[in-house]
């Protein structure tokens, strides 16, 4: 319990650090919200007036402080671009992305674990070769290429969904989930291949260890050994890897949301960065950071628990 409390404390510190660094990074790179909003209609006077209106004329630390205070009291501020409360803008997008990454993760976990174990037991060279080749092919497919291919085949040739017409999650949840499924496949395929590969090599490595050989010498069947001993030991790195995957598929989601025109958080982050819409960027970055750290912490907690039992 104390361990968990410590972890949660670290989580908060990390998220705070990320929010501060993001705030600072935008001070360093070029581009200014007021100049971006005014575009080619910008004149020094208009930029100055808009900066004052947005509160950008205040010193950096004051702005960060007031943002943090607002954030902690539940006030995420108003988008510079849309002149609407940030939460109102972000919430629906959060739902789409959560659904997208959720489906991806389920696909990855459900398919890669059995496939990984199975492929570790393959001994024949030919099958092994085919497996390796197929695996490599899946790993080398960038999500945007797969996305265009799937849209083409399932959207345009087979009419299974209509690319470019993402149904609203609230109005047509079934339609929205079906639409998201294809996008999720694009994210999942390379990840499944990677997880399978990792599992296979870890299991193979473990199977060479002395205790396994000893057990085999005692006459235990390979299936028994795998179930009783090996799987427990390869669980640690696999859980770590899956935790990391959970964090990384957010990155793939940014690209896949573009290809499938899904109004999600990744796409919104990219456009808000381009607009220098700080209140939106800050909110999304904090949400994503929280998510990433949370999954990492969970993976560690699971590891910790398993470790204790083993150790």
């Amino acid at each position, binding site marked *: 319990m104390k361990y968990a409390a410590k972890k949660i404390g670290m989580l908060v510190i990390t998220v705070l650090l990320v929010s501060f660094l993001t705030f600072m990074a935008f001070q360093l790179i070029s581009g200014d919200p007021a100049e971006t909003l005014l575009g080619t209609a910008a004149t020094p006077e208009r*930029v100055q007036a808009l900066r004052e209106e947005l509160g950008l004329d205040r010193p950096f630390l004051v702005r960060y402080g007031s943002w943090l205070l607002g954030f902690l009291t539940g006030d995420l501020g108003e988008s510079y671009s849309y002149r609407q409360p940030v939460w109102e803008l972000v919430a629906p997008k959060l739902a789409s992305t959560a659904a997208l990454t959720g489906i991806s993760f389920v696909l990855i976990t459900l398919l890669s674990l059995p496939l990984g174990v199975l492929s570790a037991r393959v001994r024949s060279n030919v099958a092994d070769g085919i497996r390796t080749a197929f695996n490599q092919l899946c790993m080398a497919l960038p999500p945007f290429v797969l996305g265009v291919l799937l849209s083409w085949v399932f959207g345009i040739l087979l009419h299974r969904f209509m690319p470019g017409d993402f149904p609203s999650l609230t109005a047509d949840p079934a339609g929205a989930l079906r639409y998201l499924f294809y996008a999720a496949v694009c994210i999942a395929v390379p990840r499944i291949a990677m997880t399978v590969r990792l599992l296979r090599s870890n299991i193979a490595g473990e199977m060479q260890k002395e205790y396994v050989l000893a057990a085999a010498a005692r006459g235990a069947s390979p299936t028994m050994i795998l179930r009783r001993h090996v799987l427990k030991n390869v669980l640690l790195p696999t859980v770590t890897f899956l935790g990391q995957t959970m964090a990384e598929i957010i990155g793939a989601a940014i690209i896949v949301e573009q290809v499938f025109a899904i109004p999600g958080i990744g796409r919104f982050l990219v456009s808000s960065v381009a607009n220098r819409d700080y209140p939106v960027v800050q909110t999304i970055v904090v949400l994503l950071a929280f998510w990433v750290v949370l999954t990492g912490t969970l993976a560690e907690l699971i590891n910790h628990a398993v470790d204790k039992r083993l150790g």
Partner: protein
Amino acid sequence: MKKKILALLLVLCLGCSLLTACGGKTNNGPTGKDTPTGSDRAAANEITVGIAQDLDESLDPHKAVAAGTKEVMFNVFEGLVKPDKDGNLIPAIASEVNVAEDGGSYTFTLRDGVKFHNGEAVTMQDVLYSINRNADDSAGEPLIPALSVIADMTAEDNRLTVTLEQPDSDFLAYMTLAILPENYDKQDTAPVGTGPFRFVSRTAQDSIVLERFADYWGAPAKLDRVTYKVIENAQGLLLGLQSGALDLVSHLGSTQTSQLSEKDFRIEEGTMNLVQALYLNNAEKPFDDVRVRQALCYAVDKQAVLELAFDGYGHPLGSSMFPAFGRYFDGSLTDYYTQDTEKAKALLAEAGYPDGFDMTVTVPSNYQPHMDTAEVLSEMLGAVGIRVTILPVEWSSWLSDVYGGRKFQSTVIGVDASNLTADALLGRFYSTASNNFTNYSNAEFDALYEQAQNTFDEDAYTSLVLQMEKNLTENAANVYIQDMADLVAVRKGLAGLQFYPLYVLDAASLYWADTAVS
């Protein structure tokens, strides 16, 4: 074991297809049908338009600046006058416009029965408020600086007389400014105007919805509803058209339109109405030397740029003016420089660069046509010994570094006109203009510009404009390339598309041919 693996792969593939097949069966929406074209929307008398840029700014027409926002909101707002498809200004909220003989004053008669989308009638009060809001200089510069020419406004019944300090032939063009209700404070997010369509909703990064305004004073819009779907990715727009999700997409590239089937789509070609050029920082070495700038012009073959990057679409240009400006456009300047590699090398040698030099081209990376042009230019300039590095930057970096900060060597961009006045294109080359981002500084040009400011005779003014254009060409202010083609993919059955000399899409004229509602 080998078989087992293969079997498993098979099961996996089957599983995937099964999952999707089940999904298809439970579906009752339009996606499950065999031909998910725009036919459902035709029956409902609505369309979906794909746009590459979100309307991510205030929707208040006096504050909005992005061309993409104006393109959509053109259908929601109107001024006392408004442009038609030929670039003429026609009466809108004013039913009649009378210009005094000396050009010193304008009298607008307000049209009877014009209503705002919120149901309120347009009053003289609203008109005065809207003009004053743009002319107000209490906080420094007014929203429309040219309105400072207004000396006095007097309202009498339904007639508004605007007296100018001096005659200004461009004045009427500024009276296209949107008339807004005075006591309404949600223009930023829920705008209210008088146009043929009323604003319904905006979902950030997703869609904008407009509906026909039933109480419109003029010929009503033919469609009931227009949904603009935001899809930034070019391939996504293409897929949306092919899948049946979109009915119309403007500003496509020729690579994209060539992939659409002629059975379902018609491609219409207009012009973007902008000046695409390799803009040079005239204050920066080596471009402060006119010979170097001319050498660049001689090194470039405009027609070849169009062939290579645009499949031959586009209209080559030779100065900062495009054909939609009619009498102000001097077509003979286009071929002032014809590609001549030897001449270019000679000019470079004369300027002290016999071995060429290194230069950078800063390009906003989100604009593929400009990136493509830069790529072709780098190849052409390489042939005369100029080594080009392309610096792709974000749009906001471009705005603050190149446009605002003028920290650049050269850039490829398209400069458009915010209204149909020559000043909108040429004013930025006046040496002290705040938007003179190329730092062009030429005494002769400045003199011509000042003279034009005080010329009220139309013919004399036109002649000065032509001289200014020629000045830019002769001094090779920039390496002018083209006015880009605007390729619009329109679903078969959808008719009535009109091209304007401005960056707008008039949705009111569109209609489904076989279900035409009048």
